[in-house]
Every structure is written in structure tokens, then in C-alpha cells.
């Protein structure tokens, strides 16, 4: 029973992190049709900013947390403004490859200006402490992560349902041109999407840093890879799909780790991916793929 609770919390917190990053990807894709491969570098940028701020400003973790989130939002919005505006409205492949190229550029910039070796940044490690509840031992980080994700999702839902910009974003996912015809500026909608994406990435970055304690040029690449997969199983572009996909992956990963023998641990990733492939055979467009209207409604 205790083991079950521990593992469930494990699954929830893994899933929460994937869901956070996956949501950031899904929001951008739903509005712009852009597969933002550079999202991982936004997270890495947050990490590197943390190092710089820690060295130059302060070691106060709260200040640093705000700083990381701000850095990620900035990076995300700047990325759109500088790199993606030229390919706005281009087809899927062009956008995808551009994002891909930007991702490589950024990773190598981190390599050039930072270092190929990990740089220590341990200011958030205090978040990861073991709490004993009776006979159960859980990690405080996992609790924070799960709670933060739930709050973030609720906040996002409120934003999308109740604010004009949020409504415009939901409408833009269906018919961007019509939103512009209503007088809402395209740039605002898109910048808003990237800002939210950056915010979610910033939150994820805090938790990643709390676990790793160091930054590296490729640190954003792996989490984003998993997040992509989460989006695809959930239905690329669907926000609930991204959350569902994230949690499904988290549960699957923990389940695979439990069920596979110890020696096969390295294979967990591969098994998860294989299961993903199976899901896609069953539902090629993802489980909760967004409605695609074919033809005019007359």
C-alpha cells in the first residue's frame, strides 16, 4: 500500500512535469501550427540565467525563481519575434525545420559561451527533501511539482475562458484570420501564446534545476522530446490532450520501471516509446485530437 502511494506520487510528479512542458508546446502549435523544437532551449536559457543571476545578483531562491520564470518568458517571446516571425504562415515542414535549426543554434551558443561541462547551480535543491508521513516516504519536490502543475492548469483555464486575449487565442486556434477581422492584433495573440509557453517552461525549469542542480547545453532537449511525444499521443494542438498525454507518459514510465527487472532500467525509455507507437497505430491523430472542420458549414 505504501509502495503504491509512493509510486503513484512518482507517476503524478513525472506526469506533471511532462504536462507542463507539453502544454507550452500545444499552445503554440494550436494557434500557429508551429512545432516549437526550440522550446527546450527556453528551459536551458532559464537554467543559464539562473547561474548568471546567482553569480551576479543574489542567491535568494525566491528571487531566483522569479528570475528564472521571467527569463524563460523573455526567451520565448524573443524567440518568436526574432526567429519565427519570418516563417509565420508557412507550411508545417518549414516551421518545424526552422524551429529545429533555431534549437541547434541555441544549443551551440550555450556550448560556445557557456561550457560543454555542467555548471553547478544548486540554489533550488532545498526543494527536494524527503518527508515522512507515517510509514510513507515522499519527496517534497514531487508534491510541489504536482500542486504547481494543477494550479498552473487551473490558472490557464481561467485565462483562456474569461479574458479577452485568452478567448482570442482559443478562437485563433480555429480561425486566426477571423480573429484579426474582429480587430484583435495577430502579434498580441501570438506573443501571448509564446509568453504563456515561456511561463510554463519557467516553472518546469525550476523543478528540473531542483533535481539536477546543474546546467548543460543540452539539458532542455530530453524533457522536450518526451513532451513532444506526450502532445502527439494526446493529439497535437489539443490542450487537454497535452495534459492527458503528459500524465499518461508519467504513469507509463513509472509502471515500466516497476514492472521491468532491475537490469533492464535503461530500456524503460525505449519501452515507453514503443507503447507510444502502439497508441499511434490505434489512433493516428492522437487520443484527443482537436476537431478539424472539413468543408464549409452552410
Amino acid at each position: 500500500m505504501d509502495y503504491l502511494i509512493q509510486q503513484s506520487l512518482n507517476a503524478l510528479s513525472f506526469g506533471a512535469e511532462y504536462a507542463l512542458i507539453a502544454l507550452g508546446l500545444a499552445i503554440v502549435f494550436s494557434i500557429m501550427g508551429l512545432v516549437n523544437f526550440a522550446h527546450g532551449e527556453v528551459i536551458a536559457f532559464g537554467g543559464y540565467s539562473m547561474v548568471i543571476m546567482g553569480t551576479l545578483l543574489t542567491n535568494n531562491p525566491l528571487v531566483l525563481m522569479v528570475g528564472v520564470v521571467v527569463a524563460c518568458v523573455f526567451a520565448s517571446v524573443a524567440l518568436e519575434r526574432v526567429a519565427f516571425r519570418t516563417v509565420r504562415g508557412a507550411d508545417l515542414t518549414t516551421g518545424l525545420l526552422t524551429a529545429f535549426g533555431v534549437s541547434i543554434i541555441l544549443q551551440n551558443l550555450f556550448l560556445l559561451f557557456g561550457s560543454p561541462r555542467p555548471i553547478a547551480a544548486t540554489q533550488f535543491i532545498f526543494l527536494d527533501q524527503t518527508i515522512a508521513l507515517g510509514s510513507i516516504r515522499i519527496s517534497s519536490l514531487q508534491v510541489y511539482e504536482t500542486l504547481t502543475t494543477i494550479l498552473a492548469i487551473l490558472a490557464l483555464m481561467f485565462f483562456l475562458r474569461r479574458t479577452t486575449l485568452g478567448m482570442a487565442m482559443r478562437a485563433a486556434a480555429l480561425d486566426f484570420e477571423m480573429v484579426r477581422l474582429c480587430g484583435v492584433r495577430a502579434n498580441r495573440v501570438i506573443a501571448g501564446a509564446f509568453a504563456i509557453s515561456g511561463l510554463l517552461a519557467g516553472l518546469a525549469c525550476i523543478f528540473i534545476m531542483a533535481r539536477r542542480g546543474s546546467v548543460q547545453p543540452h539539458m532542455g532537449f530530453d524533457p522536450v522530446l518526451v513532451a513532444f511525444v506526450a502532445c502527439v499521443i494526446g493529439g497535437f494542438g489539443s490542450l487537454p490532450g497535452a495534459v492527458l498525454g503528459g500524465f499518461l507518459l508519467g504513469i507509463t514510465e513509472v509502471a515500466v520501471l516497476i514492472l521491468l527487472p532491475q537490469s533492464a532500467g535503461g530500456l524503460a525509455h525505449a519501452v515507453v516509446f514503443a507503447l507510444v507507437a502502439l497508441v499511434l497505430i490505434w489512433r493516428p491523430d492522437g487520443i484527443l485530437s482537436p476537431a478539424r472542420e472539413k468543408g464549409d458549414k452552410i
Partner: protein
Amino acid sequence: MTPICQDRTVRARKATLAAKKTRMLEIKQLKVFHGMIEAVHGIDVSVSEGQCVSLLGPNGAGKTSTLSAITGTARSTGSMRLLGEDITQISIEDRCRKGIAISPEGRRIFGNLSVRDNMLMGGAMRKDRAALLSEMDEWFGRFPILGERAEQMAGTLSGGEQQMLAIARALLSRPRILLLDEPSLGLAPQIVAKIFEIIRELKAREITILLVEQNAAAAIGVSDKVYILNNGVITRQGTASDFGDGSDLMDELTGVHS
């Protein structure tokens, strides 16, 4: 409902007055392009304040392209002036802010938003929240069916209800000119009659309208001025009374060349 002949006299009088009124929209030598293809080959259209002007013609004539050029969604050359101001270099969003609103072809309401949210989107660029909300209530009053379905997803509405919503959405931005693209398309005759009743009401409230239609009779019945567009050029124009009930337009409107 005023009898037809009385209606026409009123309109004829209004048409002569129109020449003295301000030009709301003045278009000269408009060419509209879709990629490399020229869909409209240099037309002149003018709409005066408070007028209802119809643009009629068969499929593929370039009517929707003309509206697209006005809203800015299609590439065009030529001059376009809104109340004397040149709008050809202005973005889509800014043209809306200058007072151009459209109920586009196919209605294009936001199916994944509620009816209420669709109306809010219409007023998205307005700063006066309170006035917007009270105007929305007015529209719910005028279209009770929308009021009943206010929280429903707009995609579940019938064609006629969607058309009402599209018009309400467009008008909630308090436009100077309302562009209506084929409001009767695909609707049952009773619903069409209702829609045109609404257009008549809007006219009575001195709202400037540019109406694109295939249903010539209904359109002429509600307009001050009519243009016939065929293959991208204007083949006939005049006041509505010149066109009678549109029955002699069959050739032009079906694209048949006799």
C-alpha cells in the same frame, strides 16, 4: 412591412439625397489578386453614408474577392478610401478599428466558443466594457434564440442562428460600414426572409451596408444602389428602382452569355 412600391419611392428619394451625403467608402480601379491570378479587373464602387449597396453576380464573379480586398485579407491594387482616408496600406486589424466589420462568407463564427464569447469577440477591440455588455443584451433581446443558447457552443447552432450571430458579432464592434457576404446562402426561405428583415431594420437605423448576394430579388428589395459584377468587371450599375425585381437579370446572374 411596407408595400413594395412605397418602399421604392422612399428609396429613390434617398438615392438622390445620397449624392449629397458623405462618401463612406470610395473604391477606384480596384484589382484583386489571389496569388498570381487576377480575380477583379479594375472596378469602381462607392457607398454613401446610410446607404445599402448591393454587389450582385454569379459564382466566381469576384464579389467575395472585392470584400476581401476591403477588409485587407486579399492583395489588391487601386485606391480605397474610408470617409476620405486612404486605407490601402492599413493592416486587417486596423481596418476593423477604423470601422469596417464583416459577416463573411460561410459565417465563420468561432465554433469552439460559446455564443456569448463569440459576441464578446466582436467587441474585443472596444474599451467600454459596460456599454458592450448592455449592447449584447440588446442583441439577445432582438434575437431571443441567441439569448436562449448564450452559453452553448456556437458550432451547435443552425445556419440561420449562426448568421444572426455573425451579424451581431460584426455590429458589436460599432462599425462605420457593415460588409455582408451572402447572408442568405444555404438558408431556408423563411430564415432568409427573417435575415432580410434584420437588414431592413439596420438600414432604418442608418447603418451603412455593402451587401454581396446571389439572391438578387431580396437584395434589390433592400438596397439603394446596385452593382452587377461579372467575371471581375462591373457590367451594370444604378439605383435599385432601375432594376425592378431583378427578373431580367437572370442571364447576368447565372453567368450565361446570350
